[in-house]
């Protein structure tokens, strides 16, 4: 099995495909190469698997709009010896059948690969019902989940291929938002998921998760800080972070609910004095539509706003941050 990996240092004006499109292209081929893989769908993304379904009878199972069954049937397939890949929109994959994730997979100790699309406010115009920025926080509350947040289609592919041959419980969170280039270490099959230093500085440490890397890199361009990149956010690579952090200031920039990783970061740094700034999607009840970029701006998640928050945090340690929020 070879990995289709573009050179990570090749500049590109626009990405040739999205993570979702890459998943649609690669996942069907896993059925050809691995007899243990089965795909379970709930009426989302079914067109991409039509050809594969015909070639592998029974191994692509569309359960209709039935998300409890999506997870339950996936657990049953795992009991039958399959490596099930379960796929739908994030809120319908993680939130609606949350107890099935906890019990059918978790408590029964069965493995599956959950692949979501529709990250945070990707579906901005669709409104609250199609948004789940709390997905990682929810899954983090259950033991034994591996949570992968790729920042580029190449990274998504590497993480998908690696997950397909494991037996654990993995959540692979695909987003429309992506970095212009993949991080070389993040597409290396052996190292995929490990925390990586992308830039060394003498001051604070900034942890960028998945698709936030480009904004973070731009935001801190003129600051003497270390930038660390993570695609695997659970289990949290606290040992690596603890070894990297020198100065007490630590900033975590996540593409989902703000503060999701605050507890694990604090735990990783428990032996050293530190101050933590968490940046992410604020806890709020969405009532705006429009384009994702408008939500990015409203939440202060563009490079300029992230840079302002980091500078304020570094320069005025005793002052509370003025928290950007939605304009509503």
């Amino acid at each position: 099995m070879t990995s289709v990996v573009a050179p990570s240092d090749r500049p590109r004006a626009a990405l040739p495909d999205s993570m979702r499109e890459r998943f649609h292209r690669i996942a069907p081929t896993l059925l050809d190469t691995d007899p243990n893989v089965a795909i379970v769908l709930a009426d989302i993304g079914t067109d991409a698997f039509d050809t594969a379904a015909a070639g592998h009878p029974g191994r692509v199972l569309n359960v209709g709009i039935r998300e409890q069954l999506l997870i339950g049937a996936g657990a049953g397939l795992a009991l039958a010896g399959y490596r099930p890949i379960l796929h739908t929109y994030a809120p319908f994959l993680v939130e609606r059948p949350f107890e099935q994730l906890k019990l059918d997979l978790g408590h029964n100790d069965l493995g599956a690969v959950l692949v979501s699309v529709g990250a945070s406010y990707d579906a901005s115009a669709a409104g609250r019902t199609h948004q789940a920025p709390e997905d990682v926080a929810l899954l983090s509350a259950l033991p034994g989940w591996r949570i992968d947040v790729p920042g580029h289609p190449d990274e998504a592919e590497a993480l998908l291929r690696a997950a397909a041959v494991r037996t654990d419980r993995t959540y692979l969170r695909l987003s429309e938002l992506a970095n212009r280039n993949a991080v070389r270490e993040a597409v290396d099959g052996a190292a995929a998921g490990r925390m990586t230093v992308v830039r060394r500085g003498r001051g604070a440490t900034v942890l960028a998760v998945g698709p936030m890397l480009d904004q973070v890199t731009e935001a801190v361009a003129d600051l003497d800080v270390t930038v660390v990149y993570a695609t695997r956010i659970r289990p949290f690579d606290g040992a690596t972070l603890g070894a990297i952090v020198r100065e007490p200031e630590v900033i975590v920039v996540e593409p989902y609910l703000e503060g999701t990783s605050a507890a694990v970061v604090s735990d990783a740094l428990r032996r050293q004095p530190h101050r933590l700034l968490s940046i992410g999607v604020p806890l709020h009840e969405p009532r705006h539509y429009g384009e994702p970029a408008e939500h990015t701006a409203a939440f202060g998640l563009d490079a300029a706003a992230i840079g302002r928050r980091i500078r304020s945090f570094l320069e005025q340690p005793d002052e509370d941050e003025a928290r950007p929020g939605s304009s509503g």
Partner: protein
Amino acid sequence: MNSQTTSHAIRDRAIELIGLMTGDEKHDASATSTLDVLVVLYDRILNVSPATIGDPTRDRFLLSKGHGPMAYYAVLAATGFIDPDVLLSFGTYASILGRHPDRKLVPGVEISSGSLGHGLPIAVGLAHGLQTRGGASAGARVFCLVGDAEFDEGSNHEAVVLAGRLGLQRLHVVVIDNGSATYGWPGGIAARFELEGWSTRTVDGRDRIALEAAFTAAHPGRPHVVVATIAERAS
């Protein structure tokens, strides 16, 4: 040795073993509503034994209704899956036998259950997977026990529809119907399955001859449900 004698011996032994967990000799109807069904399944129907609990070709029994598992544990002890002495520890801190069963702790238990409405969706995936897998799994059947009140949970209905459309011949469901669903099932529970293309039988859940006949009825190309009705009685 005819079938009734054999099943009777296991039933009597199971009743005795339930006493190790309850500490008394008389049991209310709820503790034993599943007893005859379990005795028939483990004695006459299921192709599984303590020696084959890891065999891919074995039949799988999934207790979805994880409430009141004493009859289940007693039958597993009476048929050699677990040591009868373990029953004395039922519900205590370090016991393998909780008030809802855990597949990671109890030999022969295929799923951990307790929260209602989880077993049938898992059974659908398992039956479909065994059928698709073929090979060593060919012929293995899946039996899933649910309760009539458990059937309130919508997840069951997601599973019933898909199993019917897929024609999961190796899927068997037994519904213990003791009339405990708060709003009932007008027209009968079997009608919900029949409409979705299942083969159905409704029998007296304490009549072991009728249960065995219902479990062995042919149902080519369709999943099969046995509704085992349990009349309230004062023994």
